[in-house]
């Protein structure tokens, strides 16, 4: 399995506080990975670095088979290169319909002139409908997304991510605030997605992580503490000390 994303030796300091400390992380294509860790372990900052929102003080972030460095690229360029991100809070465009949201996310030209002259082709509309079916929002296509329930918004956001057709998906606490049924649906979506691409899930909820049944990376104080199957890391003494033991 070839490496899709390689983060090595990355450090970030905010006002003297080391949020990320010499962190190294690798993920291959078509892999599902869960990242866990206590508050302040640097999970969100790690995502910020990969998506270009935060620039690290040192270290390398290498992407894809051509081994491009992501450090010099803007957020938009990184997204175009194939990294999608889902935020903790569902962020969909509430003033616009589900269809508009999905169309915007659909993999297409991103340049402003191209977008200006773009009119949805039948193929695009078909794809949107397929996606809507997948995330269970087929009947809501013409509704404003602001009217959706919390869980529906989470799915819509996942749908938008899938529409982007990214090669790497970064998902921040997807199950927060969901009902058990909704969680199950979310798990299915993620597992399904990970068959064709790399997916990194940041999550607090152990039960949810267990259900994903994938390799787990434990972060602590900005560095990797342990890595392996969930059973492996939960039996690690360090992990128990800093995280589970409390």
């Amino acid at each position: 399995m070839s490496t899709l994303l390689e983060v090595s030796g990355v450090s970030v300091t905010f006002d003297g506080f080391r949020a990320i400390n010499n962190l190294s992380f690798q993920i291959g294509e078509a892999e599902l990975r869960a990242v866990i860790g206590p508050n302040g372990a640097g999970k969100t900052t790690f995502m910020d670095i990969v998506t270009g929102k935060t620039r690290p003080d040192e270290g390398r972030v290498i992407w894809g088979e051509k081994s491009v460095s992501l450090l010099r690229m803007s957020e938009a360029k990184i997204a175009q290169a194939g990294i999608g991100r889902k935020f903790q809070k569902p962020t969909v465009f509430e003033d616009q319909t589900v269809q508009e949201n999905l169309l915007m996310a659909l993999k297409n030209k991103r340049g402003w002139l191209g977008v200006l002259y773009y009119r949805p082709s039948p193929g695009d509309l078909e794809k949107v409908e397929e996606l809507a079916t997948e995330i269970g929002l087929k009947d809501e296509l013409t509704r404003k997304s602001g009217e959706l329930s919390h869980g529906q918004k989470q799915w819509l956001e996942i749908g938008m991510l899938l529409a982007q057709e990214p090669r790497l998906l970064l998902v921040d606490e997807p199950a927060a605030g969901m009902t058990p049924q909704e969680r199950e649906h979310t798990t299915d979506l993620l597992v399904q997605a990970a068959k064709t691409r790399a997916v990194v899930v940041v999550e607090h909820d152990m039960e949810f992580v267990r259900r994903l049944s994938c390799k787990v990376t434990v972060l602590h104080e900005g560095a990797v503490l342990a890595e392996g199957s969930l059973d492996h890391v939960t039996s690690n003494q360090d992990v128990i000390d800093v995280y589970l033991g409390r």
Partner: protein
Amino acid sequence: MLRLFLAGLAILCACLTANAQEGGLQPILQEHQEIIAKSSRKTIKPAIDAIAASGLPQAQVMLETWAAKNMWMRKSDGQFFAGKKAEGRSYELTDFDTGEVVGTFEKSDLKQMKPNSGIRAMIGTALVQFQLMDPSRAKRSAALRSIQRDPDGALLEPLRASINEEPDVDLKAQKQRLERLLTIGYDEDTAARVAAIEDMSDDLGVDVRAALNPLVVTKRQVAAEVPTDANIATILEPGSDALSEADAYDLLVARDLAAPHVSPEGIRAALSANIDGGRVGGVPVAQLNSDASRAQAYAALAEAGVVPALVTQADVEAALGAHVFFETYVEPSPEVTAAAEKALEQIELKVGLNQTLDLTLDAISLASIYFLAAIGLAITFGVMGVINMAHGEFIMMGAYTGYVVQQFIPDHTLSIIVAIPMAFAVTFAMGVAMERLVIRWLYARPLETLLATFGISIALQQLAKNIFGTQARPLTAPSWLDGAWVLNDVVSISYIRIAIFVLAMIFLGLFLYIMKRTRLGLEMRAVTQNPRMAGSMGINPGRVNMLTFGLGSGIAGIAGVAIGLFAKVTSDLGSDYIVQSFMTVVVGGVGNIWGALAGAGMIGFLQKGIEWMNPSNTLAAQTYMIIFIIIFIQFRPRGIIALKGRAAGD
């Protein structure tokens, strides 16, 4: 004092009696009787000179009497006396020499001497030598001022003579200084002048430069060859930077040493004067719409001898080659001019240094004004994140409060002391009302806050216009703030500006104290960082926000009183400061009082710096400053003192 004066007089007499006449003043007056009686400015000089030169002590009284139009001539014998109005139309006459009353005469027997202003000025100059020795300090000081105003070589001797006798240390120093300056300009002896110039070459006074500058004035000259007797400053090469060929040729024309160029207007006039049957010099008039055809027509006319030929480049070169151009000093002595040039150079350097100091003081003062205007904003915008476009109007309201208070309390010191808390109270109340009624509903909607507060701003401005009218209202500073702290002739700063600087520093201290040491400050910081958390700790965020906003507004009101003291109080007072205030906060770094200070400092220094480079144009200075700020934000988008990382709320 009187004894001292008498002693002084005795000495003066001793040194001047050599040419004093035995018979007293009257014979001298009689000698010049005709011209005194005629009282014409053109002819009076010998009479005044003679009186002044007599050295008689009574001459001062006589001259003063004359200048005051109290000198009368007895028509019967043409003698002059001091006259004093007696009963009816009669006058009591007193002899100048003896001081005795000679009798009372009818006005018809007398003639009053009425010197005009020109003559009075000449009498004044003549009086100076007496006044320099006058027992009254005020009179001596006035005499010095009169010399300063109107220096004259004739005054040099009396001035020197009076120095040793001067009892007042201060006046003595002034006299010595003045003596040096007069020596530079008027002494006969070149060595003495050079010595005086060197003495004064480290003095920054404007008067020193005024004395030295005439010595280095040059005049541009042209001649067939360089004269040997003139005090030549430089020899100029035509076509160089100092003297262009055109200027050199113009000089020749001005001296009638060469034929003038014919201007385009001249050509045009000559052509139109010589239209002959629709043609000029063979060229049809209709074709004369280009320079080439006009030149052709003019050449034809010149050939016919109707008009002078055009001056060609060859003519110009020949004329320039036949002459030398040089600049001569008006002052004939080369030693003096050399010394003056050197002294001026030294003074220039010192003046430059002092100007830099002056500019720095100016910049600090401007910075403290901006800081004062921005500090309220640093609270409402910087700490709370509320953008208040009516902030400028709070400044205006503070200034108007000061004005209203002065209408009731005439004493300026007291009224300012009352006005400051009043202004705070008024704008605090206004700020609290605004926060409760408007801003509270728009938290986290900064753009709408901007527009709503802008609506309040235009309403308040118009209200002020309706109440106070459009003309500027005075807010007068107490008299102890008048005047300036003068370091030397170059560096000075007005007391008001010092007071504003002090006020700005007090506010800085106050702000730091409130934020770091009081309960309100703690709650303020808590609420701005995490309102929900603060709320759960028992802090009432609504109350804290209200007080914080009120505090920021109140400080703006006090700033208004301070600004009103030196600016005109009008309804648009605030809008003059609002953009700069926001710039100050943004450039400095939001959410940080030191940022506002740094921003105010930077903008103040920058504006003064640009004004210094282009002093005629303050508008351009502001334009360039804003452009600079826009570019500056490129490099430090979060301001000079930026909060980093997560705290910046990205």
